């Protein structure tokens, strides 16, 4: 078994094994989930570390392995795994968040067996979806991960609106996924390549581009199908309530990792395979993303519940990623991928911390809380850092991504107005609601009834420490990831925006910024770069 096979198969096999363990052994369930996600995380880190040295195949993928037993040869369908710059960071992030989510699942006290089985299935599905180089299994694993999400929210969710939230998230995400499925099937059929193999399909379409008519039919299906999954405005309303009602681990895994599937699909499939339609529709996306950044940001300011606030802010962050995609140049799309990874860590951290506070106090109403920093020293500091990362403070990985996206978008003359609004929304509105939340929860007088609460012990600190460390390490050394992303993005953008290729190629030397930024004198260097646009 190769590393990639192990990464997705271990959680699924562990889930299968747990089916046969009697339900009274709750400790075994939790222990297995922790152990397996920990091993998965180590494997993913190992894979990430070996990435640069690994042999590359003709299409730019590494660690490629094929398991033809799954799938149907007559349809050109086989389970094929591989990573390149686009998904290597996502797989790493997914594995780390999965371990953190398993750590944060101690709050589950009923029906542990079912919960941990579902958690492991979700983990395996997520990692499989991001590693699959086969169109069918790419969708297959996403659905496999999606179903546990619904069940977990419906059964272990919290709050009075749990049933409504479950209903809404199931409806939205199923519709989104199925619309995307129609698009993917249509893409397979229209390409005429008779293969679900993504690299082969990409090669085939590079030589025989799809007709403009079929592009204009398929691209909107993928855009809005995937867009619903990523809570593109105005299809976002499932997200805040769904996350607000979800158990901690589910919110961490879905908001952090699974949600990125739609974006990954757009970058991997929709943009390079349907460039003409992408050119056209990305203008629409550029304006819709303002809905995410400004409207949802504004909604977030009005929230009184911490989880709803984090949920809304996570929707707002998706807007920045969409802006990066809309820019359709190497810098913007690279930045989008960086935010995808960074936001994964951040969303998992935020929901993990809010879950801790909820378990201590039983409420996330910000008016009820206050002054908690005195009691929750570690959690308070971590929450403040998460808030700062959320408003894009340098030093955290999010900053690298956001600034890159804004530069990428600004260099597209047609997107300058949008970019200006987006910068305001992301930096000012984001800072307002994040800082307000920190003030309301951590500072000020503390109501007497919170005297009894306690800070996290060493083990409970572990997941937060890992996530914070990931944000900071990549924040200070973004090259670890960006230099892996950039070659891949060069290929994808070259396919997606061919007519702009000359200018991009000419300026590629000047625009190496995310990879080549010396870390400690960031601002000077950036302003210097900014003038060259």
């Amino acid at each position, binding site marked *: 078994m190769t590393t990639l096979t192990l990464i997705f198969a271990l959680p699924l096999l562990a889930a299968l094994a747990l089916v046969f363990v009697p339900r009274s052994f709750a400790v075994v369930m939790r222990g297995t989930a922790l152990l397996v996600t920990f091993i998965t995380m180590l494997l993913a880190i190992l894979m990430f570390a070996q990435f640069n040295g690994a042999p590359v195949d003709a299409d730019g993928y590494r660690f490629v392995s094929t398991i033809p037993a799954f799938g149907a040869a007559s349809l050109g369908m086989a389970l094929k795994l591989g990573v390149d710059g686009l998904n290597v960071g996502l797989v790493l992030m997914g594995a780390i968040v999965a371990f953190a989510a398993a750590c944060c699942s101690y709050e589950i006290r009923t029906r542990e067996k079912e919960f941990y089985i579902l958690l492991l299935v979700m983990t395996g599905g997520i990692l499989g979806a991001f590693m699959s180089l086969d169109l069918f299994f790419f969708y297959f694993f996403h659905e*496999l991960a999606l179903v546990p999400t619904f069940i977990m929210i419906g059964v272990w969710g919290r709050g009075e609106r749990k049933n409504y939230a479950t209903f809404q998230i199931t409806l939205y995400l199923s519709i989104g996924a*199925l619309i995307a499925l129609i698009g993917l099937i249509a893409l397979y059929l229209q390409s005429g390549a008779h293969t679900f193999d993504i690299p082969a399909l990409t090669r085939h379409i590079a030589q025989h581009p799809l007709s403009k008519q079929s592009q204009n039919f398929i691209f909107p299906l993928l855009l809005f199908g995937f867009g619903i999954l990523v809570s593109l405005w105005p299809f976002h309303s499932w997200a805040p309530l769904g996350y607000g009602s979800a158990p901690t681990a589910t919110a961490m895994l879905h908001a952090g990792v699974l949600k990125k599937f739609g974006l990954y699909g757009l970058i991997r499939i929709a943009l390079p395979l349907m460039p003409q339609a992408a050119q056209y529709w990305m203008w629409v996306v550029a304006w819709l993303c303002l809905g995410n950044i400004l409207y949802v940001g504004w909604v977030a300011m009005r929230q009184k519940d911490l989880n709803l606030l984090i949920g809304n802010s996570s929707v707002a962050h998706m807007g920045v990623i969409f802006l990066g995609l809309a820019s359709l140049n190497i810098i913007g799309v690279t930045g989008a991928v960086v935010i995808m990874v960074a936001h994964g860590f951040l969303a998992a951290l935020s929901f993990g911390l809010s879950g801790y506070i909820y378990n201590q106090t039983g409420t996330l109403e910000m008016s009820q809380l206050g002054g908690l920093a005195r009691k929750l020293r570690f959690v308070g500091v971590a929450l403040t850092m998460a808030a700062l990362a959320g408003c894009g403070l340098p030093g955290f990985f999010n900053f690298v991504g956001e600034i890159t996206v804004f530069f990428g978008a600004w260099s597209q003359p047609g997107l300058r107005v949008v970019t200006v609004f987006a910068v305001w929304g992301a930096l000012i509105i984001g800072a307002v609601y994040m800082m307000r939340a920190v003030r309301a929860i951590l500072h000020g007088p503390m109501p007497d009834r919170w005297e009894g609460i306690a800070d996290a012990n060493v083990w409970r600190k572990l997941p937060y420490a890992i996530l914070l460390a990931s944000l900071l390490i990549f924040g200070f050394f973004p090259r670890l990831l960006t230099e892996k992303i950039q070659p891949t993005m060069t290929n994808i953008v070259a396919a997606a925006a061919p007519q702009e290729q000359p200018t991009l190629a000419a300026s590629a030397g000047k625009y190496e910024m995310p990879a080549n930024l010396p870390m400690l004198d960031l601002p000077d260097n950036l302003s210097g770069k900014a003038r060259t646009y």
Partner: protein
Amino acid sequence: MSLEITVVLLGLAVLLADLWMAPERRRALGYASAAIVGILLLNTFDSHSGTVFGSAAGGMFVQDALSIFFKRLFLLATAMVLILAVEFSDRITAGVSEYYSLIIFALAGMLFAASSNNFVMLFVSIELITVTFYVLTSFSRGKVASLEAGVKYLILGALSSAFMVYGIALVWGTTGKFSFTELAQVAGDYSQNKVFLTGVLFILAGLGFKIAAFPFQMWTPDVYQGAPTPTTAFLAIGSKAAGFVLLLRFLFTAIPAITDHWSNLLIVISAITILYGNLCAIPQRNLKRLLGYSSIAHAGYLLMGVAALTSAGQAAVMYYLGGYLFTTIAAFAVIVLVMRHLDSEDIGGLAGLSRRSPLLALTLTLAMVSLAGLPPLAGFFGKFLLLKAIIEQGPANHGYYWLAFTALAGVVISLYYYFGVIRAVYFSKEGADAAPLEISRPAQFVLGVCILGIFWLGLFPGAVLDFATEAAQVLR
């Protein structure tokens, strides 16, 4: 034709054995007949290994990849239904052996249906199936619901048979042909002949009744609810699959020239059937009634493959029926085992099942997830193939895209009621009865086969898909 003769003889033997056998050994009789059907199933892999095809009775009876595919499906379904019937036998007051032998006679009808290439054979086989089902449906004589179901099925079934035989008469009256092969050569000449087209429509109405397609679906919920559970299981998969094999043969070997112009009719019927079944299933509290509506919806999904008018669509229909076999039998097996001591099959009766029997809870969950069409199970791959088949036709006729979106709406609606069942199994308050359930070895075997089948068709579709594709080649 040796297979069909053996099955008929087996049915007679079971009837005769009843005369000499002590009542307490009837269980063994049921298991023995299931075992024999199982051996016949294994035998099809040996004697007809792919190429030994031919015809009998002057071309009325054909043996080809299509008929082999369906015969294996029918034999497997019957073997499992017979085991379920044994489990159910303590609720049958009298005539257990007749129950087994009627199931076997219905199987004979289905086997003939799979091979029929002639209107006479079509009508005889369909009557053999339907008449045995009249009796099977009303077999729980003590229950009013069962008798009511039997009467409803009898009246509506007789009506549809009348339509069909009238349709056959009209087609024969205009063309003078009974054989599908001969009819195919002249059908194109009659594409404007109103009497001929009326005859074709009447035949389709009769077949529509068998597969429970709109607007001939009225009987389904009542009959599914009232009939003894093994009968319902057999009705859901056996009778429906027989309807589909006849429909495929009729549309694509007898009147291909007409069928090509009727794609819009098939699209509309398929879309309405999907929506009707799914929407009506939402408020149901009786599990068998819910599965009745869901079976209407699945008839709609299957009709998508027929409406595609391509080999890919026909192969998808067969693949889907294969998955449907395992999921339906699994669901009804759980109903038989859990609810045999309850008066009604209310979903509330499933409460606490996850503690009473983890195996049954798992089986029912997998069946529901597969019916809903979620990976990694059989139903997902089947729906994927059906969708692929109709989207492939989309550029030619945009109605197919609308059908695809209707199917998606149906799938989303169905998530609601299928998850409702799963919720009752795992997450509802404990029921009054918390005693662990005893499951006999043969029943465990059936559950195991179903679980393996559901996963196998979901994860390793290659072999069955190739077989279905080969079978679909027969039709064009």
